């Protein structure tokens, strides 16, 4: 179609603008994601992280700017949107599995129906991926029979099985009990080590630090600060970032010696 992909660039967001009515949520935001890069987006609640991810695969329409995946514009309402979305894997906070299908059917649906791949081949891959995340015994279970962590690992496999060019994770551990957070984060870490390109929104700062190649701090719908994890977490430049990072540390005044 005459679009020449820029080598190495997977996703290009330029001057994105998003508003709900009068309420501007994303303002003139530009961000580039390169092949194999893990970009972590952090920021206070309501700063527009989810909205940004939802604009990337056009679940939300935008009011300005554009999003390009491998040079191709991602446009709500465009005819090839389903095809482009096949290359953008998205994992949601609340899993959003299909309750009437088994784990295996959840995973196989889109590769078979949307990509037209062979059932036997997809099944084999799905089972291998399930095994990789420790769910090989759950292939024929229904979502309601799984724990939160298992559901989320299923959702990750469902996205992976489409062989996406980029994975979007939106606070995928926020709805989980603390003891299940780790099993999910380890799966994502494993994907990063395999060199997958991803955009990760998270409130788990230690995890962010461990996984990120680049940290983007979002505030009020704008990129307020960005840098390597070391720069951002150890030497934040802006007051806002400092204040934000402070909300994750707790201190207690020195104990008064007890008098008996």
């Amino acid at each position, binding site marked *: 179609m005459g679009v020449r992909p820029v080598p190495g660039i997977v996703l290009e967001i330029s001057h994105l603008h998003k508003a709900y009515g009068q309420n501007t949520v994303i303002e003139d935001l530009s961000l580039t994601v390169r092949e194999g890069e893990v970009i972590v987006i952090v920021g206070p609640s309501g700063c527009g992280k989810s909205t940004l991810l939802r604009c990337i*695969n056009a*679940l939300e329409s935008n009011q300005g700017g554009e999003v390009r995946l491998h040079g191709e514009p991602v446009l709500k309402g465009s005819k090839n949107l*389903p*095809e*482009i*979305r*096949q*290359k*953008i894997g*998205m994992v*949601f906070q*609340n899993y*959003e*599995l*299909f*309750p*009437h299908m088994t784990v295996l059917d959840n995973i196989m*649906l*889109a590769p078979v*129906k*949307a*990509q037209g791949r062979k059932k036997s081949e997809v099944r084999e891959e799905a089972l291998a991926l399930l095994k990789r995340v420790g769910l090989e015994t759950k292939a024929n279970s229904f979502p309601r029979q799984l724990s939160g962590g298992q559901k989320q690992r299923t959702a990750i496999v*469902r*996205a992976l099985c*489409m062989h996406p060019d980029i994975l979007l994770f939106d606070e995928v551990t926020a709805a989980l009990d603390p003891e299940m957070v780790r099993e999910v984060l380890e799966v994502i870490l494993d994907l990063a080590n395999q060199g997958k390109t991803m955009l990760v929104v998270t409130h788990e700062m230690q995890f962010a630090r461990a996984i990120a190649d680049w940290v983007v701090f979002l505030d009020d719908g704008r990129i307020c600060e960005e840098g390597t994890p070391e720069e951002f977490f150890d030497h934040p430049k802006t007051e806002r970032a400092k204040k934000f990072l402070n909300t994750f540390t707790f201190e207690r005044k020195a104990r008064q010696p007890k008098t008996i």
Partner: protein
Amino acid sequence: MPDLGLDVLFKGKNFARLLGGLGIALRISVIAILVSVVLGTVLGVLRQRENLILKAFMRLYLEVIRIMPQLVLLFLVYFGTTRSFGWDLSGETASVIVFSLWGTAEMSDLVRGALSSIPGHQYESAAALGLKKTQVYLYVVLPQAVRRLIPLSINLITRMIKTTSLVLMIGVVEILKVAQQIIEANRMNSPNAAFGVYLTVFVLYFLVCWPISVLAGKLEKRWG
């Protein structure tokens, strides 16, 4: 043993006549149910759209059907159309029309309810996987909606079957009318016939509706 008046059933063709009456009631029900399921589903899906004209029309239609007792609708269609338009509808045709109008209205309500009970996230996560709109409906939304719909629509179906007993009021000789005729004809020689005959009617209705309810229960359990 008390005289239940069951003997009249074995006189002449009385039992066969009752069954015939049941057959007519069922024929009206089945046609009306088929029409209602098809039209109700189409209207229910259309009601998801934001079309003001369609909305206003459906609103009016549903309110009228809801407010009017079925009997009034029957009289309106059977007698009313003869008077005003000079149509000469048979009682059975009028019944089919009324029951279809009623069933379609209720069915469209059920379909709309089932569709809107599917959370928006389901549409989104399916779309995010790259499924086309029709595929989202076909594989994700409709199967879930149908599971919610089936117990409700079976309930509607049994209500429609039961309510067909009203059509005797516009001269359709269905099971209840046959029952009355039998009782009337035997008033002298078998004064207890009323009990036996109505008991039989009860059993016959039960035999028709019960399996349907059981099926509904089973499906509900399996998909619950």
